[in-house]
């Protein structure tokens, strides 16, 4: 980056800007803030709180599954735990973490002073605590919380649902609003607030993947809102969208849900693709291989994600042509995904690599996400899926794409940008310890699930056949290890906020991007006057001469 960039304090000379010096004091700073960094921070902390809450539910699940038989919780409560774990991790931990990263980093990466719609930004954050308080409070209601799985198939979630389902529905509505507003904000920021000369093809990949994610969000979150609205109407207003008795159809629910649900899984992974595409070049000290193909691959993944939803429904009795169509369409996604994996591998090829914590998480991301992709391909083979469907094999699959995929992507990002956020270096030794414990714990927890799944252990059941006992015990030990390690992460982050070696503006020598041109910690206001990017090469040109 050769352009001379204003390090943030630019606005200070101007009259009328004096009150912008820093954040307001006290609690109201956080309630009323419209500053993208404050809001990003709140999103990240909220997400981490939800990660611990959803994680403790996973600990309950794994404790019960430590041995066959029923020991610790009642089956009814077990079902609430699996449901809430899924909902909280998807909507409370992974999605808000990426929105938090977007808030912090997108303006810094494109040279914008803030998000395009700062007040809406504040509102979309504060909807989340409201939504999740409502959701979690259902656990204490008579009849218990949602117990129908995170996919809430009707009529299980309508006719047979606990009373609290109405609160579940409203919580989903609020989360949906929050995500939609967040997505609109991201799109408006990226399309309208880029620094002069920052063409689309000069944008960092994290910005690109988030732009595409935001479009996915505004396309499918309304469908999710629609499907829960239909549930609400079935429950309270006597319609029968999903009730066969009144001419509706439960299978319809699954179509509408998965029309949202499959793009949703890409919403949870595309931003991680973007982050990893920033981190791997930084620690391989080589520019990203195939920037343009990365952009097109992301776009085609997003497009394909709309036409594969019925791979979750191979066993509901769709016609043969349907099975074939959805099977081939799903297998097709492996092509752009493969392009990405090869690009990351080629970026590392002959690079001068070092393995600081962000890089460790990023490399593990590439390897383990690929394993998850492979099990996805196995599941995508329609005739084989009849055996795998609703077994622990599916659980293994999506945990391999989500834990070392989404979650490791978030960890990698957090370590990579913590110096920029806090102005301190985190403790590298502890970071590495966190990585290895997470890596070992996570593989121990989820790898054996492939085997028990193939052998026929059903998902979402609190008890199981004796023959699965050993693998389940290994899984539980791994899960406890993974869970406990996350407290170490909390400690590392707090330690890094409170002190540590002062971080230079650019702590990683291979790192690229506007965010490294401002001091660490990033001043409260940055890029009040936009940097001029017209001198910069587009990435594809950059590649040619590098």
């Amino acid at each position: 980056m050769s352009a001379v960039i204003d390090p943030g304090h630019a606005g200070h000379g101007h009259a009328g800007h004096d009150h912008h010096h820093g954040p307001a004091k006290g609690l109201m700073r956080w309630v009323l803030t419209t500053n993208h960094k404050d809001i990003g921070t709140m999103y990240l902390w909220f997400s981490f709180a939800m990660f611990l809450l959803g994680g403790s539910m996973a600990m309950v699940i794994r404790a019960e599954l430590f041995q066959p038989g029923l020991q610790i919780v009642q089956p009814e409560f077990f079902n609430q735990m699996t449901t809430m774990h899924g909902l909280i991790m998807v909507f409370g931990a992974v999605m808000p973490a990426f929105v938090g990263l977007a808030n912090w980093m997108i303006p810094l990466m494109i040279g914008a002073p803030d998000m395009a719609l700062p007040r809406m930004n504040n509102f979309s954050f504060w909807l989340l605590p409201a939504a999740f308080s409502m959701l979690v409070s259902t656990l204490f209601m008579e009849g218990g919380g949602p117990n129908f799985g995170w996919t809430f198939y009707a009529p299980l979630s309508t006719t047979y649902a606990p009373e609290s389902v109405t609160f579940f529905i409203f919580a989903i509505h609020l989360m949906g609003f929050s995500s939609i507003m967040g997505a609109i904000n991201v799109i408006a920021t990226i399309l309208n607030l880029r620094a002069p000369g920052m063409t689309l093809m000069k944008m960092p990949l994290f910005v690109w993947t988030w732009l595409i994610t935001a479009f996915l969000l505004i396309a499918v979150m309304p469908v999710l809102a629609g499907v829960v609205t239909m549930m609400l109407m079935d429950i309270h207003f006597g319609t029968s969208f999903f009730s066969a008795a009144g001419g509706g159809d439960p299978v319809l629910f699954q179509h509408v849900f998965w029309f949202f649900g499959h793009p949703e899984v890409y919403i949870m992974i595309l931003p991680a693709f973007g982050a990893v595409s920033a981190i791997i070049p930084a620690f391989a000290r080589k520019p990203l291989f195939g920037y343009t193909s990365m952009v097109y691959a992301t776009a085609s993944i997003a497009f394909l994600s709309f036409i594969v939803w019925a791979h979750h429904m191979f066993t509901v009795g769709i016609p043969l042509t349907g099975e074939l169509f959805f099977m081939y369409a799903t297998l097709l996604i492996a092509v752009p995904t493969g392009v990405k994996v090869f690009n990351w591998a080629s970026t590392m090829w002959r690079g001068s690599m070092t393995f600081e914590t962000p890089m460790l998480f990023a490399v593990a991301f590439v390897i383990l996400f690929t394993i998850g992709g492979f099990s996805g391909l196995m599941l995508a083979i329609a005739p084989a899926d009849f055996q795998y469907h609703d077994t622990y094999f599916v659980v293994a699959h999506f945990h391999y794409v989500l834990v070392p995929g989404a979650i490791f992507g978030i960890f990698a990002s957090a370590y990579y940008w913590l110096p920029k956020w806090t102005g301190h270096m985190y403790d590298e030794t502890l970071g590495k310890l966190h990585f290895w414990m997470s890596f070992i714990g996570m593989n121990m927890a989820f790898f054996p699930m492939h085997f028990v799944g193939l052998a026929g252990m059903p998902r979402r059941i609190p008890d199981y056949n004796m023959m699965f006992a050993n693998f389940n015990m290994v899984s539980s030990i791994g899960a406890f290890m993974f869970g406990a390690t996350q407290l170490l992460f909390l400690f590392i982050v707090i330690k890094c906020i409170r002190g540590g070696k002062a971080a230079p503006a650019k702590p990683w020598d291979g790192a690229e991007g506007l965010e490294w041109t401002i001091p660490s910690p990033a001043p409260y206001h940055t890029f009040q006057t936009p940097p001029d990017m017209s001198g910069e090469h587009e990435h594809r040109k950059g590649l040619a001469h590098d």
Partner: protein
Amino acid sequence: MTEERLTRRLVVRLCLVVVAMFGFGFALVPIYDVMCQAFGINGKTAGVYEGQQAVDEQRQVRVQFLATNAADMVWEFGPQADEVVVHPGDSTQMLFVAYNPTDKPMTAQAIPSVAPSKAAAYFHKTECFCFTQQVLQPGERIEMPVRFIIDRDLPADVRHLTLAYTLFDVTARKPPVAQATLTRAAP
């Protein structure tokens, strides 16, 4: 245009997309029904069939009947015969019997489904108790007819198909009193 106006215009457009996608979610409901009917998928049978077909004496198809009560439904409900053998094109009637053992009037709705699902489009009902709701007084027993024609174009590999009814208690939704006066008034 200024930056604010650009942003406002973009936001308005994006909101339109959001509204459209919310609508699309609901549009999936009729789209789904139309697709199921058009392709005869999901075992869904169509409404009243009014065509006529020449009988194909050469071919025989076994039609099996199933009757199931949905959860909480207490009626006795079943076909008079487990199966019949028919010729494609021929019109056949089967009677189903329903009995309300409770001491309350109740309304029921039967939902048909055909397996294998690819045969559904070739299974025509000219008359069916599933086209209306049934109201039974306490202790009342009725015979309900279904009259059907198997299409001559039924794929050759289908030699055996199943017509399954699930009977739902819809008393809460369609109170039997109002319904009863309606059905009495009709003839």
